[in-house]
Protein backbone atom coordinates (compact mmCIF):
# COMPACT_ATOMS: atom_id res chain seq x y z
CA UNK A 1 0.00 0.00 0.00
CA UNK A 2 1.29 3.37 -0.87
CA UNK A 3 -0.69 6.52 -0.22
CA UNK A 4 1.72 8.60 -2.26
CA UNK A 5 0.95 6.49 -5.32
CA UNK A 6 -2.75 6.91 -4.72
CA UNK A 7 -2.75 10.62 -3.99
CA UNK A 8 -0.29 11.85 -6.62
CA UNK A 9 0.02 15.57 -7.21
CA UNK A 10 -1.95 15.32 -10.45
CA UNK A 11 -4.82 13.49 -8.73
CA UNK A 12 -4.95 16.05 -5.94
CA UNK A 13 -4.88 18.84 -8.51
CA UNK A 14 -7.69 17.39 -10.63
CA UNK A 15 -9.60 16.51 -7.46
CA UNK A 16 -9.38 20.04 -6.15
CA UNK A 17 -9.86 21.83 -9.46
CA UNK A 18 -11.79 19.45 -11.69
CA UNK A 19 -11.71 20.30 -15.41
CA UNK A 20 -14.99 20.34 -17.31
CA UNK A 21 -17.06 20.54 -14.16
CA UNK A 22 -20.03 22.27 -15.77
CA UNK A 23 -22.98 21.47 -17.99
CA UNK A 24 -22.50 21.36 -21.76
CA UNK A 25 -24.98 23.53 -23.61
CA UNK A 26 -26.97 21.69 -26.27
CA UNK A 27 -25.66 18.30 -25.19
CA UNK A 28 -27.12 15.41 -27.14
CA UNK A 29 -26.28 12.52 -24.83
CA UNK A 30 -26.13 12.26 -21.06
CA UNK A 31 -26.34 9.80 -18.18
CA UNK A 32 -26.33 9.87 -14.41
CA UNK A 33 -24.18 7.61 -12.29
CA UNK A 34 -24.59 6.94 -8.62
CA UNK A 35 -22.69 4.81 -6.18
CA UNK A 36 -25.26 4.04 -3.49
CA UNK A 37 -22.62 2.67 -1.12
CA UNK A 38 -20.76 5.92 -0.72
CA UNK A 39 -23.14 8.49 -2.17
CA UNK A 40 -20.88 9.61 -5.04
CA UNK A 41 -22.88 11.12 -7.88
CA UNK A 42 -21.92 12.11 -11.41
CA UNK A 43 -23.87 13.40 -14.40
CA UNK A 44 -22.06 13.25 -17.74
CA UNK A 45 -23.03 15.46 -20.70
CA UNK A 46 -21.82 14.76 -24.24
CA UNK A 47 -22.12 16.80 -27.37
CA UNK A 48 -21.32 14.83 -30.51
CA UNK A 49 -20.94 16.62 -33.82
CA UNK A 50 -22.16 15.45 -37.23
CA UNK A 51 -19.03 13.30 -37.63
CA UNK A 52 -19.75 11.56 -34.32
CA UNK A 53 -16.79 13.20 -32.70
CA UNK A 54 -16.95 14.53 -29.16
CA UNK A 55 -17.25 18.26 -29.56
CA UNK A 56 -17.74 18.80 -25.86
CA UNK A 57 -17.97 16.73 -22.72
CA UNK A 58 -18.60 17.90 -19.19
CA UNK A 59 -19.80 16.61 -15.87
CA UNK A 60 -21.56 17.64 -12.72
CA UNK A 61 -21.31 15.81 -9.47
CA UNK A 62 -19.72 15.39 -6.14
CA UNK A 63 -17.42 12.81 -4.70
CA UNK A 64 -14.03 12.03 -3.29
CA UNK A 65 -10.71 13.17 -4.77
CA UNK A 66 -10.36 9.92 -6.71
CA UNK A 67 -13.78 10.07 -8.35
CA UNK A 68 -13.54 13.78 -9.16
CA UNK A 69 -10.01 13.41 -10.56
CA UNK A 70 -11.03 10.40 -12.60
CA UNK A 71 -13.99 12.26 -14.15
CA UNK A 72 -11.83 15.32 -14.74
CA UNK A 73 -9.02 13.42 -16.49
CA UNK A 74 -11.50 11.31 -18.45
CA UNK A 75 -13.41 14.28 -19.83
CA UNK A 76 -10.12 15.93 -20.86
CA UNK A 77 -9.03 12.81 -22.74
CA UNK A 78 -12.29 12.06 -24.47
CA UNK A 79 -12.78 15.45 -26.09
CA UNK A 80 -12.11 15.22 -29.83
CA UNK A 81 -12.29 11.41 -29.89
CA UNK A 82 -14.68 9.51 -32.13
CA UNK A 83 -17.69 7.99 -30.45
CA UNK A 84 -16.84 4.46 -31.62
CA UNK A 85 -13.35 4.72 -30.12
CA UNK A 86 -14.53 5.84 -26.72
CA UNK A 87 -15.78 2.42 -25.67
CA UNK A 88 -12.44 0.85 -26.52
CA UNK A 89 -10.69 3.45 -24.39
CA UNK A 90 -13.17 2.97 -21.53
CA UNK A 91 -12.69 -0.80 -21.58
CA UNK A 92 -8.95 -0.45 -21.67
CA UNK A 93 -9.07 1.86 -18.66
CA UNK A 94 -11.43 -0.42 -16.73
CA UNK A 95 -9.18 -3.43 -17.33
CA UNK A 96 -6.14 -1.47 -16.23
CA UNK A 97 -7.74 -0.14 -13.06
CA UNK A 98 -8.85 -3.62 -12.03
CA UNK A 99 -5.89 -5.79 -13.00
CA UNK A 100 -3.78 -5.13 -16.11
CA UNK A 101 -0.33 -3.62 -15.77
CA UNK A 102 -0.78 -0.98 -18.44
CA UNK A 103 -3.00 0.54 -21.07
CA UNK A 104 -2.86 -1.22 -24.45
CA UNK A 105 -5.07 0.78 -26.76
CA UNK A 106 -3.46 2.58 -29.67
CA UNK A 107 -6.24 5.13 -29.56
CA UNK A 108 -4.48 7.03 -26.80
CA UNK A 109 -1.25 8.94 -27.22
CA UNK A 110 1.64 8.21 -24.87
CA UNK A 111 1.20 11.41 -22.89
CA UNK A 112 -2.50 10.65 -22.51
CA UNK A 113 -1.66 7.18 -21.23
CA UNK A 114 0.82 8.61 -18.76
CA UNK A 115 -1.85 10.93 -17.43
CA UNK A 116 -4.37 8.10 -17.04
CA UNK A 117 -1.83 5.84 -15.37
CA UNK A 118 -1.75 8.32 -12.50
CA UNK A 119 -4.99 6.65 -11.43
CA UNK A 120 -3.42 3.17 -11.36
CA UNK A 121 -2.55 3.47 -7.65
CA UNK A 122 -6.23 2.87 -6.93
CA UNK A 123 -5.69 -0.80 -7.82
CA UNK A 124 -4.14 -1.38 -4.41
CA UNK A 125 -7.32 -0.13 -2.75
CA UNK A 126 -10.09 -2.48 -3.88
CA UNK A 127 -12.76 -0.55 -1.96
CA UNK A 128 -11.86 2.59 -3.88
CA UNK A 129 -11.85 1.15 -7.42
CA UNK A 130 -15.53 2.05 -7.76
CA UNK A 131 -14.70 5.69 -7.05
CA UNK A 132 -12.38 5.70 -10.07
CA UNK A 133 -14.70 3.80 -12.41
CA UNK A 134 -18.04 5.56 -11.73
CA UNK A 135 -17.61 8.30 -14.33
CA UNK A 136 -16.31 5.83 -16.93
CA UNK A 137 -19.30 3.52 -16.54
CA UNK A 138 -21.54 6.57 -16.72
CA UNK A 139 -19.86 7.68 -19.94
CA UNK A 140 -20.62 4.27 -21.46
CA UNK A 141 -24.24 4.59 -20.33
CA UNK A 142 -24.46 8.03 -21.96
CA UNK A 143 -23.13 6.72 -25.27
CA UNK A 144 -25.41 3.67 -25.20
CA UNK A 145 -28.37 5.68 -23.95
CA UNK A 146 -28.65 2.88 -21.43
CA UNK A 147 -29.38 4.92 -18.31
CA UNK A 148 -30.60 2.36 -15.84
CA UNK A 149 -34.27 2.73 -15.27
CA UNK A 150 -34.68 4.23 -11.85
CA UNK A 151 -36.79 2.06 -9.60
CA UNK A 152 -40.21 3.53 -10.19
CA UNK A 153 -41.76 1.90 -7.19
CA UNK A 154 -39.54 3.84 -4.87
CA UNK A 155 -40.16 7.15 -6.56
CA UNK A 156 -43.91 7.06 -6.90
CA UNK A 157 -44.87 7.65 -3.33
Amino acid at each position, binding site marked *: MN*LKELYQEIILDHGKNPRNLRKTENFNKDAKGHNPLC*GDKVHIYLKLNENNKVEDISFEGQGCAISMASASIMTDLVRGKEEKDIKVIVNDFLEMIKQKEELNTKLLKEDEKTKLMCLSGVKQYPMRVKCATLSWHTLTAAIDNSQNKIDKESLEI
Partner: protein
Amino acid sequence: MNIDNIKNEFPIFNNKVHNNDLVYLDSANSSQKPKIVVDRIYDFYTKEFSNVGRSVHYLAVAATNLYENTRTSVQKYINAKDKNEIVFTKGATEAINLVANTYGNQYLKEGDEILLTELEHHSNYVPWHYLRIKKGVKIEFAEVNKDGEVTIESIEKKINQKTKIIAVTHVSNVTGAILPIKEITQLAHSKGIPVLIDGCQGAPHLKLDMQDIDCDFYAISCHKMYGPTGLGILYAKKKWLEDLPPYQGGGGMIKEVKKDLITYGDLPNKYEAGTMATAQVIAFDESIKFLNKIGINNIEKHEKELIEYGYEILRKNNSVRLISNPKQKGSAISFTLDGIHAHDIATILDEEGVAIRAGHHCCQILHDKLELPATARASLGVYNTKDDLDKLNEAINKCKKIFNTK
Protein backbone atom coordinates in the same frame (compact mmCIF):
# COMPACT_ATOMS: atom_id res chain seq x y z
CA MET B 1 -12.96 -6.92 35.05
CA ASN B 2 -11.08 -3.64 34.72
CA ILE B 3 -12.12 -1.50 31.78
CA ASP B 4 -8.62 -0.03 31.43
CA ASN B 5 -7.13 -3.37 30.33
CA ILE B 6 -10.12 -4.49 28.33
CA LYS B 7 -8.29 -4.57 25.00
CA ASN B 8 -6.53 -7.70 26.27
CA GLU B 9 -9.84 -9.56 26.16
CA PHE B 10 -10.11 -8.98 22.39
CA PRO B 11 -7.78 -11.12 20.24
CA ILE B 12 -8.20 -8.80 17.23
CA PHE B 13 -5.97 -6.23 18.91
CA ASN B 14 -3.01 -8.64 18.70
CA ASN B 15 -2.95 -8.04 14.95
CA LYS B 16 -1.36 -5.15 13.11
CA VAL B 17 -3.09 -3.15 10.39
CA HIS B 18 -0.63 -1.83 7.80
CA ASN B 19 2.07 -2.38 10.45
CA ASN B 20 0.25 -0.19 12.95
CA ASP B 21 -1.68 -1.01 16.09
CA LEU B 22 -5.36 -1.21 15.33
CA VAL B 23 -7.35 1.82 16.44
CA TYR B 24 -10.87 0.53 16.02
CA LEU B 25 -13.39 3.37 15.83
CA ASP B 26 -16.16 1.61 13.94
CA SER B 27 -18.13 -0.06 16.71
CA ALA B 28 -21.39 1.61 15.70
CA ASN B 29 -21.04 -0.49 12.57
CA SER B 30 -20.05 -3.65 14.40
CA SER B 31 -18.12 -4.27 17.60
CA GLN B 32 -15.12 -6.54 18.00
CA LYS B 33 -15.54 -9.85 19.83
CA PRO B 34 -14.06 -10.84 23.19
CA LYS B 35 -12.18 -14.15 23.23
CA ILE B 36 -14.78 -15.80 25.49
CA VAL B 37 -17.46 -15.25 22.85
CA VAL B 38 -15.32 -16.63 20.04
CA ASP B 39 -14.28 -19.61 22.19
CA ARG B 40 -17.86 -20.33 23.08
CA ILE B 41 -18.80 -20.74 19.42
CA TYR B 42 -15.88 -23.15 18.91
CA ASP B 43 -16.70 -25.13 22.05
CA PHE B 44 -20.35 -25.41 21.18
CA TYR B 45 -19.63 -26.76 17.71
CA THR B 46 -16.87 -29.11 18.85
CA LYS B 47 -18.35 -30.46 22.07
CA GLU B 48 -22.04 -29.73 22.40
CA PHE B 49 -23.63 -29.19 19.03
CA SER B 50 -27.19 -30.17 18.30
CA ASN B 51 -30.28 -28.47 16.95
CA VAL B 52 -32.60 -27.18 19.65
CA GLY B 53 -36.22 -27.67 20.57
CA ARG B 54 -36.84 -30.80 18.55
CA SER B 55 -35.06 -34.03 19.45
CA VAL B 56 -35.02 -35.73 22.85
CA HIS B 57 -31.44 -36.99 22.82
CA TYR B 58 -28.84 -35.83 25.32
CA LEU B 59 -27.19 -33.20 23.09
CA ALA B 60 -30.51 -31.76 21.96
CA VAL B 61 -31.73 -31.31 25.51
CA ALA B 62 -28.46 -29.71 26.61
CA ALA B 63 -28.38 -27.37 23.61
CA THR B 64 -32.02 -26.39 24.14
CA ASN B 65 -31.26 -25.51 27.75
CA LEU B 66 -28.29 -23.38 26.72
CA TYR B 67 -30.35 -21.63 24.06
CA GLU B 68 -33.11 -20.84 26.54
CA ASN B 69 -30.55 -19.72 29.13
CA THR B 70 -29.55 -16.92 26.80
CA ARG B 71 -33.16 -15.85 26.51
CA THR B 72 -33.33 -15.59 30.30
CA SER B 73 -30.02 -13.71 30.43
CA VAL B 74 -31.28 -11.20 27.86
CA GLN B 75 -34.56 -10.83 29.76
CA LYS B 76 -32.64 -9.97 32.91
CA TYR B 77 -30.18 -7.72 31.10
CA ILE B 78 -32.90 -5.53 29.65
CA ASN B 79 -35.29 -6.05 32.57
CA ALA B 80 -38.16 -7.44 30.54
CA LYS B 81 -41.09 -8.73 32.53
CA ASP B 82 -41.25 -12.14 30.88
CA LYS B 83 -38.63 -14.30 29.16
CA ASN B 84 -41.08 -14.98 26.34
CA GLU B 85 -40.94 -11.30 25.43
CA ILE B 86 -37.49 -12.00 23.95
CA VAL B 87 -37.59 -13.14 20.31
CA PHE B 88 -34.37 -14.09 18.52
CA THR B 89 -34.08 -12.83 14.95
CA LYS B 90 -31.31 -12.71 12.37
CA GLY B 91 -30.64 -9.09 13.23
CA ALA B 92 -32.22 -5.83 14.36
CA THR B 93 -33.26 -5.34 10.74
CA GLU B 94 -35.34 -8.50 10.85
CA ALA B 95 -36.74 -7.48 14.23
CA ILE B 96 -38.06 -4.23 12.74
CA ASN B 97 -39.31 -6.00 9.61
CA LEU B 98 -41.15 -8.41 11.89
CA VAL B 99 -43.04 -5.58 13.58
CA ALA B 100 -43.65 -3.64 10.35
CA ASN B 101 -45.08 -6.77 8.73
CA THR B 102 -47.19 -8.15 11.54
CA TYR B 103 -48.38 -4.95 13.19
CA GLY B 104 -48.58 -3.21 9.82
CA ASN B 105 -50.69 -5.92 8.22
CA GLN B 106 -52.99 -6.31 11.16
CA TYR B 107 -53.58 -2.71 12.16
CA LEU B 108 -52.66 -0.24 9.42
CA LYS B 109 -54.91 0.95 6.64
CA GLU B 110 -54.85 3.56 3.92
CA GLY B 111 -54.33 7.08 5.25
CA ASP B 112 -52.81 5.95 8.55
CA GLU B 113 -49.50 7.47 9.52
CA ILE B 114 -46.25 6.03 10.76
CA LEU B 115 -44.04 8.51 12.57
CA LEU B 116 -40.28 8.14 12.22
CA THR B 117 -37.51 10.70 12.64
CA GLU B 118 -34.99 12.19 10.23
CA LEU B 119 -32.29 10.40 12.21
CA GLU B 120 -33.42 6.88 11.34
CA HIS B 121 -31.11 4.28 9.89
CA HIS B 122 -32.46 2.79 6.65
CA SER B 123 -33.38 -0.31 8.62
CA ASN B 124 -35.96 1.70 10.55
CA TYR B 125 -37.36 3.32 7.43
CA VAL B 126 -37.29 0.87 4.53
CA PRO B 127 -39.33 -1.87 6.34
CA TRP B 128 -42.11 0.69 6.88
CA HIS B 129 -41.85 1.88 3.27
CA TYR B 130 -43.43 -1.38 2.03
CA LEU B 131 -46.58 -0.43 3.90
CA ARG B 132 -46.77 2.73 1.82
CA ILE B 133 -46.70 0.60 -1.31
CA LYS B 134 -49.00 -2.14 -0.03
CA LYS B 135 -51.48 -0.22 2.06
CA GLY B 136 -51.17 3.43 1.19
CA VAL B 137 -50.07 4.50 4.64
CA LYS B 138 -48.11 7.71 5.04
CA ILE B 139 -44.70 8.11 6.65
CA GLU B 140 -43.92 11.25 8.59
CA PHE B 141 -40.50 12.31 9.84
CA ALA B 142 -39.94 14.25 13.05
CA GLU B 143 -37.34 16.89 12.37
CA VAL B 144 -33.78 16.90 13.56
CA ASN B 145 -32.46 20.19 14.98
CA LYS B 146 -29.12 21.89 14.30
CA ASP B 147 -27.43 20.02 17.14
CA GLY B 148 -28.39 16.69 15.59
CA GLU B 149 -31.13 15.92 18.10
CA VAL B 150 -34.78 15.00 17.82
CA THR B 151 -36.64 16.52 20.72
CA ILE B 152 -39.89 15.49 22.32
CA GLU B 153 -41.39 18.71 20.91
CA SER B 154 -40.52 17.80 17.34
CA ILE B 155 -42.11 14.38 17.86
CA GLU B 156 -45.22 15.93 19.37
CA LYS B 157 -45.57 18.29 16.41
CA LYS B 158 -45.99 15.38 14.02
CA ILE B 159 -48.44 13.33 16.06
CA ASN B 160 -52.06 13.49 15.00
CA GLN B 161 -55.21 11.38 14.98
CA LYS B 162 -53.87 9.28 12.12
CA THR B 163 -50.57 8.34 13.78
CA LYS B 164 -50.71 4.60 14.40
CA ILE B 165 -47.16 3.77 15.43
CA ILE B 166 -44.03 5.73 16.34
CA ALA B 167 -40.68 4.15 15.47
CA VAL B 168 -37.59 6.02 16.63
CA THR B 169 -33.95 5.32 17.22
CA HIS B 170 -32.63 5.22 20.77
CA VAL B 171 -29.32 6.78 19.74
CA SER B 172 -28.43 8.26 16.35
CA ASN B 173 -25.68 6.29 14.64
CA VAL B 174 -24.52 9.53 12.97
CA THR B 175 -25.01 12.46 15.36
CA GLY B 176 -24.75 10.33 18.48
CA ALA B 177 -27.81 12.05 19.99
CA ILE B 178 -29.56 10.05 22.69
CA LEU B 179 -33.31 10.45 22.24
CA PRO B 180 -35.68 10.87 25.19
CA ILE B 181 -37.29 7.49 24.54
CA LYS B 182 -39.04 7.21 27.88
CA GLU B 183 -40.73 10.59 27.40
CA ILE B 184 -41.56 9.77 23.79
CA THR B 185 -43.17 6.52 24.93
CA GLN B 186 -45.17 8.30 27.65
CA LEU B 187 -46.38 10.88 25.17
CA ALA B 188 -47.30 8.24 22.59
CA HIS B 189 -49.10 6.07 25.11
CA SER B 190 -51.08 9.04 26.35
CA LYS B 191 -52.51 9.13 22.84
CA GLY B 192 -52.85 5.36 22.53
CA ILE B 193 -49.98 4.96 20.06
CA PRO B 194 -47.50 2.06 20.35
CA VAL B 195 -43.76 2.75 20.16
CA LEU B 196 -40.89 0.85 18.58
CA ILE B 197 -37.35 1.77 19.56
CA ASP B 198 -34.45 0.94 17.27
CA GLY B 199 -31.97 0.08 19.99
CA CYS B 200 -28.95 -0.77 17.83
CA GLN B 201 -26.87 2.11 19.16
CA GLY B 202 -28.44 2.08 22.60
CA ALA B 203 -28.16 -1.51 23.78
CA PRO B 204 -24.33 -1.79 23.61
CA HIS B 205 -23.76 1.41 25.55
CA LEU B 206 -26.64 2.31 27.86
CA LYS B 207 -28.42 0.72 30.78
CA LEU B 208 -31.67 -0.78 29.56
CA ASP B 209 -34.86 -1.29 31.49
CA MET B 210 -37.80 -2.27 29.34
CA GLN B 211 -40.29 -1.99 32.17
CA ASP B 212 -39.12 1.50 32.96
CA ILE B 213 -39.01 2.71 29.34
CA ASP B 214 -42.33 0.95 28.79
CA CYS B 215 -41.92 0.85 24.99
CA ASP B 216 -43.87 -1.73 23.04
CA PHE B 217 -40.99 -2.98 20.89
CA TYR B 218 -37.21 -2.65 21.19
CA ALA B 219 -34.87 -3.95 18.48
CA ILE B 220 -31.32 -5.08 19.34
CA SER B 221 -28.34 -5.95 17.15
CA CYS B 222 -26.19 -8.55 18.91
CA HIS B 223 -23.09 -8.08 16.77
CA LYS B 224 -22.86 -4.48 17.96
CA MET B 225 -22.98 -5.80 21.55
CA TYR B 226 -19.76 -7.83 21.48
CA GLY B 227 -21.77 -10.77 20.18
CA PRO B 228 -21.83 -12.85 17.00
CA THR B 229 -23.17 -11.71 13.64
CA GLY B 230 -26.40 -13.14 12.30
CA LEU B 231 -28.27 -12.49 15.52
CA GLY B 232 -30.68 -9.86 16.70
CA ILE B 233 -33.36 -9.57 19.33
CA LEU B 234 -36.85 -8.23 19.28
CA TYR B 235 -38.17 -7.31 22.67
CA ALA B 236 -41.94 -6.99 22.46
CA LYS B 237 -44.55 -6.70 25.14
CA LYS B 238 -46.29 -10.04 25.61
CA LYS B 239 -49.68 -8.62 24.70
CA TRP B 240 -48.35 -7.82 21.21
CA LEU B 241 -46.65 -11.15 20.65
CA GLU B 242 -49.84 -12.93 21.65
CA ASP B 243 -51.99 -10.65 19.55
CA LEU B 244 -50.00 -10.31 16.33
CA PRO B 245 -49.81 -13.02 13.65
CA PRO B 246 -46.60 -15.01 13.01
CA TYR B 247 -44.02 -13.37 10.75
CA GLN B 248 -42.55 -16.39 8.98
CA GLY B 249 -43.92 -19.90 8.69
CA GLY B 250 -41.97 -23.12 9.01
CA GLY B 251 -40.82 -25.77 11.41
CA GLY B 252 -40.65 -25.06 15.09
CA MET B 253 -43.30 -22.34 15.14
CA ILE B 254 -46.37 -24.59 14.80
CA LYS B 255 -48.56 -26.54 17.15
CA GLU B 256 -50.62 -28.66 14.78
CA VAL B 257 -50.39 -29.06 11.02
CA LYS B 258 -53.19 -30.77 9.07
CA LYS B 259 -54.09 -30.58 5.40
CA ASP B 260 -56.86 -28.18 6.23
CA LEU B 261 -55.70 -26.60 9.48
CA ILE B 262 -52.57 -25.10 10.97
CA THR B 263 -52.25 -23.79 14.51
CA TYR B 264 -49.26 -21.92 15.82
CA GLY B 265 -46.97 -22.65 18.71
CA ASP B 266 -46.86 -20.75 21.97
CA LEU B 267 -44.39 -18.01 22.70
CA PRO B 268 -41.54 -17.73 22.04
CA ASN B 269 -41.68 -20.42 19.30
CA LYS B 270 -44.40 -18.62 17.35
CA TYR B 271 -41.86 -16.11 16.03
CA GLU B 272 -38.85 -18.42 15.65
CA ALA B 273 -39.50 -20.42 12.49
CA GLY B 274 -36.87 -22.82 11.18
CA THR B 275 -33.50 -23.65 12.68
CA MET B 276 -32.30 -20.57 14.49
CA ALA B 277 -28.77 -19.18 14.80
CA THR B 278 -28.16 -21.65 17.60
CA ALA B 279 -24.42 -21.22 18.15
CA GLN B 280 -24.75 -17.46 18.00
CA VAL B 281 -27.54 -17.40 20.58
CA ILE B 282 -25.55 -19.64 22.92
CA ALA B 283 -22.38 -17.58 22.46
CA PHE B 284 -24.33 -14.36 23.05
CA ASP B 285 -24.79 -15.46 26.64
CA GLU B 286 -21.04 -14.86 27.01
CA SER B 287 -21.44 -11.35 25.59
CA ILE B 288 -24.01 -10.60 28.27
CA LYS B 289 -21.70 -12.03 30.92
CA PHE B 290 -18.88 -9.90 29.55
CA LEU B 291 -20.99 -6.74 29.75
CA ASN B 292 -22.13 -7.65 33.25
CA LYS B 293 -18.57 -8.27 34.42
CA ILE B 294 -17.52 -4.77 33.39
CA GLY B 295 -20.82 -3.31 34.51
CA ILE B 296 -23.00 -1.16 32.28
CA ASN B 297 -22.58 1.82 34.60
CA ASN B 298 -18.82 1.64 34.15
CA ILE B 299 -19.25 1.33 30.38
CA GLU B 300 -21.51 4.40 30.28
CA LYS B 301 -19.05 6.40 32.37
CA HIS B 302 -16.03 5.30 30.32
CA GLU B 303 -17.64 6.05 26.97
CA LYS B 304 -19.07 9.37 28.13
CA GLU B 305 -15.60 10.52 29.15
CA LEU B 306 -14.21 9.40 25.81
CA ILE B 307 -16.86 11.06 23.68
CA GLU B 308 -16.43 14.33 25.57
CA TYR B 309 -12.69 14.03 24.99
CA GLY B 310 -13.30 13.28 21.30
CA TYR B 311 -15.42 16.41 20.94
CA GLU B 312 -12.81 18.44 22.78
CA ILE B 313 -9.83 17.47 20.63
CA LEU B 314 -11.69 17.57 17.34
CA ARG B 315 -13.09 21.00 18.18
CA LYS B 316 -9.52 22.24 18.66
CA ASN B 317 -8.56 20.92 15.22
CA ASN B 318 -9.50 23.85 13.02
CA SER B 319 -10.18 21.92 9.78
CA VAL B 320 -12.65 19.62 11.46
CA ARG B 321 -16.34 20.43 11.09
CA LEU B 322 -18.36 18.51 13.66
CA ILE B 323 -21.80 17.88 12.24
CA SER B 324 -23.64 17.83 15.55
CA ASN B 325 -23.47 18.74 19.21
CA PRO B 326 -26.20 16.90 21.09
CA LYS B 327 -26.64 17.54 24.80
CA GLN B 328 -26.98 13.80 25.48
CA LYS B 329 -24.07 12.27 23.60
CA GLY B 330 -23.98 8.61 22.63
CA SER B 331 -20.89 6.84 21.37
CA ALA B 332 -20.59 8.26 17.84
CA ILE B 333 -19.11 11.47 16.50
CA SER B 334 -19.33 12.50 12.84
CA PHE B 335 -17.38 15.16 11.03
CA THR B 336 -16.12 16.49 7.74
CA LEU B 337 -12.78 18.06 6.88
CA ASP B 338 -12.46 21.22 4.81
CA GLY B 339 -11.41 20.30 1.28
CA ILE B 340 -11.15 16.53 1.88
CA HIS B 341 -13.90 14.07 1.09
CA ALA B 342 -14.87 11.54 3.76
CA HIS B 343 -13.72 8.59 1.65
CA ASP B 344 -10.28 10.04 1.22
CA ILE B 345 -10.15 10.60 4.98
CA ALA B 346 -11.09 6.97 5.62
CA THR B 347 -8.43 5.63 3.24
CA ILE B 348 -5.68 7.78 4.74
CA LEU B 349 -6.74 6.96 8.32
CA ASP B 350 -6.77 3.28 7.46
CA GLU B 351 -3.12 3.45 6.46
CA GLU B 352 -2.44 4.56 10.05
CA GLY B 353 -4.43 1.63 11.43
CA VAL B 354 -7.35 3.90 12.32
CA ALA B 355 -10.63 2.25 11.28
CA ILE B 356 -13.56 4.65 10.85
CA ARG B 357 -16.56 4.69 8.55
CA ALA B 358 -17.15 7.16 5.73
CA GLY B 359 -20.31 7.67 3.73
CA HIS B 360 -23.93 8.23 4.65
CA HIS B 361 -23.94 5.49 7.30
CA CYS B 362 -27.27 4.17 5.97
CA CYS B 363 -28.86 7.53 6.85
CA GLN B 364 -29.49 9.24 3.52
CA ILE B 365 -32.47 11.21 4.84
CA LEU B 366 -30.26 12.83 7.46
CA HIS B 367 -27.41 13.50 5.03
CA ASP B 368 -29.82 15.13 2.56
CA LYS B 369 -30.96 17.36 5.39
CA LEU B 370 -27.38 18.20 6.31
CA GLU B 371 -26.68 18.78 2.60
CA LEU B 372 -23.65 16.55 2.92
CA PRO B 373 -23.18 13.58 0.58
CA ALA B 374 -20.88 11.88 3.05
CA THR B 375 -19.42 12.28 6.52
CA ALA B 376 -16.66 10.55 8.46
CA ARG B 377 -17.67 8.85 11.68
CA ALA B 378 -15.68 7.67 14.66
CA SER B 379 -17.65 5.44 17.01
CA LEU B 380 -16.64 3.91 20.30
CA GLY B 381 -16.67 0.65 22.17
CA VAL B 382 -15.54 -0.46 25.62
CA TYR B 383 -12.02 -1.09 24.35
CA ASN B 384 -11.31 2.46 23.17
CA THR B 385 -9.02 4.85 25.00
CA LYS B 386 -8.07 8.51 24.89
CA ASP B 387 -4.92 7.38 23.11
CA ASP B 388 -7.11 6.02 20.28
CA LEU B 389 -8.73 9.44 19.91
CA ASP B 390 -5.33 11.14 19.91
CA LYS B 391 -4.28 8.80 17.11
CA LEU B 392 -7.46 9.71 15.24
CA ASN B 393 -6.55 13.36 15.55
CA GLU B 394 -2.97 12.74 14.39
CA ALA B 395 -4.22 10.76 11.40
CA ILE B 396 -6.58 13.63 10.54
CA ASN B 397 -3.57 15.93 10.53
CA LYS B 398 -1.87 13.55 8.12
CA CYS B 399 -4.88 13.93 5.76
CA LYS B 400 -4.40 17.68 5.87
CA LYS B 401 -0.72 17.25 5.05
CA ILE B 402 -1.34 14.98 2.07
CA PHE B 403 -4.06 17.25 0.71
CA ASN B 404 -2.10 20.33 1.62
CA THR B 405 -5.03 21.94 3.40
CA LYS B 406 -5.00 23.94 6.59
